[in-house]
Each structure stands twice: as structure tokens, then as C-alpha cells.
């Protein structure tokens, strides 16, 4: 029981770590695209 809980917590930790890494990478890519691109839109 104890080892099962430990395994679940490890797995949950991994998923959270993957999610955080994915969000960070996605945020980085969004900022890169916003900064590197120079389109002109009607809003300006």
C-alpha cells in the first residue's frame, strides 16, 4: 500500500513536471514568434 502510494506520487510528479516543461516551452515559443515576427495588422 505504502509503495503503491509512493509510485502514484512519483508518477504524478512526473506528469506535473512534463506539464510545466511543456507550458514553459510553449510560452517561450510564443514569445519568440511574437518577437521575431513583424506582421502589420489592422488593429494598429
Amino acid at each position, binding site marked *: 500500500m505504502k509503495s503503491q502510494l509512493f509510485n502514484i506520487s512519483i508518477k504524478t510528479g512526473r506528469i506535473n513536471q*512534463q506539464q510545466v*516543461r*511543456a507550458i*514553459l*516551452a*510553449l510560452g*517561450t*515559443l*510564443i*514569445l*519568440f*514568434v*511574437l*518577437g*521575431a*515576427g*513583424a*506582421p*502589420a*495588422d*489592422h488593429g*494598429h
Partner: protein
Amino acid sequence: MLAVLGGFVAGLLRAWYNGRVFAIPDLRTVWLVFVAFIPQWIVFYLPLTRRLASDEVAAAALLVSQTLLLIFAWFNRQLFAFWVLGLGLLLNLCVISLNGGLMPISPETLSKMGIDLAAHALQVGERFGGSKDVLLPPAQTRFVWLSDRFLLPGWFPYSVAFSLGDILIAVGAFWLLWASGGSKISQASLSH
């Protein structure tokens, strides 16, 4: 941004179809992107300061920011997508730096976007609103083929002009996200 959204959705669907976890590869020197974006955020995106920045300040901020982003792309060149992203950025940086620090856009392109130049009281050589673009006729533009001269089809609900560099950046971003949801083989091909 449409390419990022489209690539993200496509990558997630691909990962789901292949029974894999959507995983963007590790990026190096991520902090550099955040640092690089600060000048642009102040000059082009933050409503409070956007209108206050002079054209010279805007041009300097754009050049510094894009140079830092180019360094970031170089640090991540082990990923094929960053060659495409970096080439797009390099093309934009070339035309921007050769035309005074802002992206040139012609009066014709702005008219095709449905923008009334007279109503905006825009002069040649002046920055277009709070954007990264400067109004320049093609005859006064260096490397005009790299400027904001492409338009989305008329049926598209959003009017936007973009450059060849912007197209490559969109392709690179889509590629990175699409490959992040792929099979083991295609995920291995992310790097080369």
C-alpha cells in the same frame, strides 16, 4: 500566432493518435527569450508606454531584441525547426536593419488592408501606429521583397500584412509543435 495555435492543436492530436505524450524538446537558454522580449513588450505591446516611445527608441529596441532572439535560435540549432525559425528571423532582421530599424510597409499594401492613409495622417518614413512597421514606398525600400508585402486572402476575417521572414517563422513554429506530438522516429528527427 495562428501557426503556434494550429501547430499546438495538430501536435496534440498527433500525440493522441500515436498514443504518445506531447513533448516539446528541451530548449537551451530559455531566459534569453524572456530578456529579449522585454524591450519589445515595453515599446510595442504595453499600452501605457507604446505611444510614448519615439520611432528611434522603437527601432533600437527592435534591433536589440531581435539580435538576442537570433542568439537564442543559434543556441538551439540542434533542433531543425530552429534553423527555419532562425532563417525567418534573420530575413526580418536584415530588412529591418537596412531600413532604419523598423519593418517597411508600402502605402499600397496598407491600402489593400483597408487602411485609409489620409485618415491616419501617415507620412512617408513614419511608424504605423504603435506597430513595428514604417511607411515606405517600394522605391525607397531596401530589399523590398523581404518587407511586409503579403496579405491573407480577402475572405479571411482578419486583415494582416506579413513578410517572407514571417512565413518562415510560422512554418518553423508549426513544424516544432507538430513534430513534438509525433512518433519516436519523427521525434528523433527533431534534432539532426
